[in-house]
């Protein structure tokens, strides 16, 4: 576009309004823990200004327009639900962050929301505003690892914590990792390591593969991760169709793939790009010639592609039917559905859990002072999540958590209209991770 659209929607989500003063359960209990930090440390980032009042703010920069709008809107629902639960002391929130009852450290949590359109510059501009004007104590946002990487850097520079929204690039907790950034969700490396054995078992060795790759950090790292993970079994790349984010048409790429003689199409495109490229792959007869695989699953993809995900393998972060195995997932599904009227997808689940983990760390640190919160994450303690117990790796701030392999259900096997996938396997996270320094992560300073 000629000019930059700046949809600057500010919402204040204050559920339990009017929390005058600090509740007894809040600072009373944890005040004892904080003096070591509070007294010795000079102001840092938005600390202490951001947490001196009765409330604390979180800045959200999420795509509400553009290619990733659907997924962004979904993430926002997860964050809104989490904030509501923090302020009301909901049972599910307490299961993850036991000390959170009326806000975090007794302070009501408010959300400030801006549209990022999945553009790094727009996201940084919005968050800069939230830091300066609203003194937010935490930032979140992304879909688009390009945004995540940019906000990582902003977080480190401004010394304000950042937890990613959806970000699939290896770089986010790899070469572009920062001391002030944390990621809960799965990413290229773990997705590829989890899905590769399943694919080889299903389709056999020595396959010719065509890739569709969005042209930025997420696309390149995920494609490479899948290539590396399948190399040992003789899978080769016959073509890699790299396209810009938000390409209006995929016909020329699909013709190249149709003429490539590939056995499989591994589609790394995301958001609406995934929807459009899969629908057009169908139009061009590509899906009749080769098997489709989606290594980094896209929320609402099955719904939006109208049956084209049937029989398709994908790696994902969360799928609601795991609730039979994980009680917290069941609680989350119920809470989410009660508020929004449909089953949650992984963007919302990741958003919720990221916030709940942050709340837990802050409560445990007993202060909002960022280095104290970071060091609490870095203890690497085992903590609950919707997919069982997880922990954050101190070396790169990546959450070690399972990856879920799903396969699109045939229409006739669907038990209800949202029963799109069979969960094939839940692969534990520890074995999927690269060595902490493999992707060049250097976290940087605390202060």
């Amino acid at each position, binding site marked *: 576009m000629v000019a930059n659209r700046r949809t600057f929607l500010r919402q204040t989500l204050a559920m339990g309004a009017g929390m005058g003063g600090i509740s007894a359960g809040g600072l009373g209990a944890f005040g004892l823990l904080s003096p070591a930090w509070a007294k010795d440390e000079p102001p840092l980032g938005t600390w202490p200004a951001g947490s001196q009042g009765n409330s604390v703010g979180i800045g959200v920069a999420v795509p509400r327009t553009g290619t990733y709008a659907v997924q962004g809107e979904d993430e926002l629902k997860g964050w809104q639900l989490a904030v509501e639960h923090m302020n009301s002391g909901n049972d599910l929130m307490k299961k993850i962050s036991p000390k959170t009852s009326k806000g975090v450290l007794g302070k009501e949590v408010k959300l400030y929301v801006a549209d990022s359109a999945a553009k790094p510059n727009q996201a940084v501009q919005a968050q800069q505003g939230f830091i300066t004007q609203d003194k937010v104590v935490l930032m979140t946002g992304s879909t688009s690892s390009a945004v995540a990487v940019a906000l990582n850097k902003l977080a480190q520079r401004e010394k304000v914590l950042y937890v990613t929204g959806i970000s699939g690039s290896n770089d986010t907790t790899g070469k572009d990792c920062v001391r002030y950034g944390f990621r809960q969700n799965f990413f290229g490396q773990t997705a590829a390591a989890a899905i590769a054995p399943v694919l080889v078992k299903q389709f056999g060795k020595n396959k010719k593969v065509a890739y569709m790759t969005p042209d930025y950090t997420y696309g390149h790292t995920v494609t490479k991760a899948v290539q590396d993970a399948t190399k040992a079994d003789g899978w080769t790349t016959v073509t890699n169709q790299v396209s810009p984010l938000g390409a209006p048409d995929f016909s020329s790429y699909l013709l190249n793939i149709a003429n490539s003689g590939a056995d499989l199409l591994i589609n790394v495109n995301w958001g609406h790009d995934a*929807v459009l490229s899969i629908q057009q792959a169908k139009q061009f007869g590509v899906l009749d010639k080769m098997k489709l695989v989606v290594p980094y699953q896209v929320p609402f993809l099955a719904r939006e592609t109208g049956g084209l995900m049937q029989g398709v393998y994908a790696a994902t972060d969360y799928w609601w039917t795991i609730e039979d195995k994980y009680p917290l997932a069941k609680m989350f599904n119920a809470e989410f559905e009660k508020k929004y009227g449909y089953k949650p997808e992984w963007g919302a689940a990741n958003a919720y859990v990221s916030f709940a983990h942050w709340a837990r760390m802050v409560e445990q640190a007993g202060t909002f002072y960022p280095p104290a919160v970071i060091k609490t994450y870095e203890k690497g303690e085992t903590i609950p999540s919707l997919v069982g117990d997880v922990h954050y790796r101190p070396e790169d701030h990546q959450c070690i958590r399972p990856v879920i392999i799903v396969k699109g259900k045939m229409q006739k096997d669907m038990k209800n209209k949202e029963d799109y996938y069979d969960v094939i396997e839940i692969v534990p996270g520890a074995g999927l991770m690269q060595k902490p320094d493999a992707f060049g992560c250097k976290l940087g300073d605390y202060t």
Partner: protein
Amino acid sequence: MFTWANFFSQVFNGLALGALLALISSGLTIIYGTLGVLNLAHGAMFMMGGYAGYVAYDATGSFIVAVIAGSLFLLVVGVVLERVVIRHFYQRPHEDQLLVTFGLSIVLIEMVRLIFSSLSKSVPAPPLLSGITSLGITFYPTYRIAVVGIVAVALLVLYFVLFRTRLGMIVRAGIEDSAMVDSLGINVDRVFMVVFGIGAMAAGFAGIVNAPIVSLTPDVGEAILVQTFVVVVIGGVGSFPGAVLGGLIAGEIISITSMINPAYAYIMLFAAMTLVLVLRPYGLLGVRGRE
């Protein structure tokens, strides 16, 4: 990845892609050529044509009805917008026109998002034109082949209206000297309204014809708008035949580059535009002094 089969399929794909781009660009160029207004809401109108068609298709199940509804709805939208907003900007500087049409596009896009959400909507191709056809060298979606024909007919109709009718004559005279046309007793004001309506209708028509190829989202016009501008600049701003030529060139550039290096397909489009701007600033078929 070069093979002759792939090369010929890409050349054909370039033609099909170009035809669509030509159709979308024609509405933009007609409005600019006649009214001097660079309409940044053109992408939004394209998108609304698709959604209006989607609603009509949903209600009737007929693709023909959808095409008619999408086009007529945008004709009405165009006329209303022209009367209420645009006509006050004919005498204003270009910056004002850009700002107001840009603003309009945001309003229109977000209105559609409010009603339909960002989740994509599909309009299937009519049963007769769905499926895949063998072109000998390659398989190609039947509907996309049909679109080449549909667009050719639509462009011919537009050409006829602009160059072979009394209305077209007045329009073209109005471009040259609207004061003189006015003094001849012709209501230029009304002609301009009609022209804006036709331009919007062309966008709406393109939107619904394009709908079975893409899935509709409120942002569908935004991505295409950028390309449309490239097409218009290459062909010559305000030139109707230029839009057609520019569209075809753009389609071929995207297709053929993708075969050599897919990552450069869209970048080459801008490289070509830059080249044209340097060597022939008024575009390939543009008229000097009107750029």
